[in-house]
């Protein structure tokens, strides 16, 4: 029983070890290793979750022989374990959903390197979730960035590489700000571990000295993480990045990578700086404003797209805006809503990307509106999956999107001076979502009469075979979405308890 304490550490190490091994084997073996690893991480995280649920408090785990102020640590509570579980599920389904395209998109002999990247990404995500040390956080943020860059550019056409360099430049700016931020934090507190740093910061706030640097530090860290996760003014790399990577990479990038940074940011807010100090520093208002702008501008951009994948990518600009809007509300409820929407968006976005694969592989690779007409009849599972994802994004009841919108609205009610803006932004953004997503859904369900005669019905010969794993992944993600939508009470309760354990 007490042995379960080791599982998070095992999962991080296992992921890295798999990565190192995968660099020396061929593509198939690397894929199998990766799938096994992700499954193992999934099981371990589930066990960790049950363990933390039994203990009811967050566990501190020494990485080495030395306790808090001296040696590295990881720390896991309910929310960390749940996030690890959730991320590994999404990772597994994304890999399953797109591996058939990994083979075609990547130069022969380099598939195993792609799986190395995925393993490293997994380990860095786990470390960012679990870590209790700022500098470890920085190092793994860098690993995450490099792995993401590799995933973008592993498709060896010019698009991938240009997208990769734009992504790289933007996120290096972000990590530069983050690095100088934690250096300054180390300077004024003298600690890199989160809890001692927090005590030092409370000391600073009480006796006022070094308070100005503290404000600058909060701003630097928030801005750095916002840039890395693609908040609105810094979103320009998102559409190309998500639009041109291989489908697995798109799903993972849009649904996990940016989320990892946001989780780290929330963790720093709660555990290092202290949420009240963050609120009093007014940086949240800026995040709120940019989030609201992103919600609307992202949707407006998405309406103007003709390429299905770029439309989905722009909609995730808007969704990131939702998350920052929730964080910016500066209340517990807002934070819960933000975390829940983070889960929602992870599930829905990967569902959309994966099902989009299923759609355009039956419409000879075209990804624009005209190309996708009638695709839903040629690949029914993908069509249904895409519709479910779109409806969830629109906020269809019983799907996860509805719950998160409800949570945002109720959270906004607690902040009278932000309530109206939030509600209006929610409504505008929802209507815009409805416009572009339902337009796409209608397109994939309607065709020109000529081909309609042959394909408009669920006729056998018209259904192109997509890979089994793709269908499996789509269905599993639909179920995940429904789960979030129907049994949200447990999840929300878990999130709020976990956030209490964060501090």
């Amino acid at each position, binding site marked *: 029983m007490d042995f379960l304490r080791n599982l998070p550490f095992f999962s991080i190490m296992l992921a890295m070890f798999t990565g190192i091994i995968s660099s020396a084997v061929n593509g198939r073996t690397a894929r199998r290793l990766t799938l096994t690893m992700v499954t193992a991480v999934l099981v371990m995280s589930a066990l960790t979750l049950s363990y933390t649920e039994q203990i009811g408090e967050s566990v501190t785990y020494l990485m080495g022989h030395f306790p808090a102020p001296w040696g590295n640590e990881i720390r896991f509570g309910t929310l960390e374990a749940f996030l690890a579980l959730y991320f590994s599920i999404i990772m597994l389904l994304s890999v399953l959903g797109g591996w058939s395209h990994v083979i075609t998109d990547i130069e022969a002999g380099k598939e195993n390197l792609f799986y190395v990247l995925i393993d490293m990404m997994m380990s860095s995500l786990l470390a960012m979730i679990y870590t209790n040390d700022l500098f470890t956080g920085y*190092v793994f943020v860098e690993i995450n960035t490099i792995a993401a860059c590799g995933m973008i550019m592993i498709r060896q056409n010019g*698009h991938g590489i240009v997208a990769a360099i734009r992504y*790289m430049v933007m996120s290096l700016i972000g990590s530069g700000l983050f690095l*100088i931020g934690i250096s300054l934090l180390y*300077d004024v507190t003298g600690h890199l571990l989160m809890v001692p740093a927090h005590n030092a910061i409370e000391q600073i706030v009480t006796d006022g000295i070094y308070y100005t640097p503290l404000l600058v530090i909060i701003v630097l860290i928030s801005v750095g993480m916002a840039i890395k996760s693609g908040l609105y003014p810094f979103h320009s790399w998102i559409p190309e990045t998500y639009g041109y990577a291989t489908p697995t990479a798109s799903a993972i990038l849009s649904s996990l990578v940016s989320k990892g940074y946001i989780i780290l940011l929330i963790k720093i807010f709660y555990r290092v700086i202290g949420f009240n100090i963050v609120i009093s520093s007014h940086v949240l208002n800026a995040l709120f404003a940019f989030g609201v702008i992103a919600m609307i501008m992202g949707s407006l951009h998405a309406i103007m797209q003709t390429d299905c994948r770029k439309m989905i990518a722009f909609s995730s600009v808007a969704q990131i805006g939702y998350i920052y809007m929730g964080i910016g509300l500066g209340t517990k409820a807002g934070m819960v809503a933000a975390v829940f929407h983070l889960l929602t968006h992870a599930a829905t976005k990967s569902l959309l990307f994966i099902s989009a694969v299923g759609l355009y592989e039956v419409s000879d690779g075209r990804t624009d509106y005209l190309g996708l007409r009638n695709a839903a009849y040629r690949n029914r599972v993908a069509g249904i999956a895409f519709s479910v994802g779109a409806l969830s994004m629109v906020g269809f009841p019983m799907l996860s999107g509805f719950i998160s919108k409800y949570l945002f609205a109720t959270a906004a009610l607690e902040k009278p001076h932000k309530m109206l803006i939030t509600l209006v932004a929610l409504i505008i953004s929802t209507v815009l979502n409805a416009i572009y997503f339902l337009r796409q859904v209608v397109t994939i369900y309607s065709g020109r009469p000529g081909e309609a005669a042959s394909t408009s019905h669920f006729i056998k010969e018209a259904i192109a075979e997509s890979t089994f794993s793709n269908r499996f992944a789509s269905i599993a993600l639909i179920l995940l979405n429904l789960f979030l939508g129907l049994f949200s009470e447990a999840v929300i309760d878990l999130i709020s308890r976990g956030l209490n354990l964060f501090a």
Partner: protein
Amino acid sequence: MLDIEVLFTSHLEETVAMILFGIGFSLLLLNRNLIKKIMGLNIMDTAVYLFLTAKGYIYGRMVPILTDGITDPNAYTNPIPDGLVLTGIVVSVSVSALLLSLTIRLYDRYHTLDLDKIIMEWRKEEDA
């Protein structure tokens, strides 16, 4: 408000580090030439290392290596920033290598180092 005297006497290293950081940041963000962007990245990281090492130094103390058996903490400078700098250097080396290889591939394809030109070319291809 802004006390120049303090800036250039007791905080000289930090000031220089911050100016360097700003230079690198602006290069990375504003310059259109990829190679200069990479230089900016390295300047930015170096500024952070300068800041950290400056933080580690204490007047009149030895480097943190055991010399003739003295284990009194007040005899040595602070070892932590040096370790952080070591780690940071490796990170920036890796990132620079990655960026340079990306630059090589882009130059092979577009025969220019100007990011704006590259992006415009690329969008033309994409629409074509």
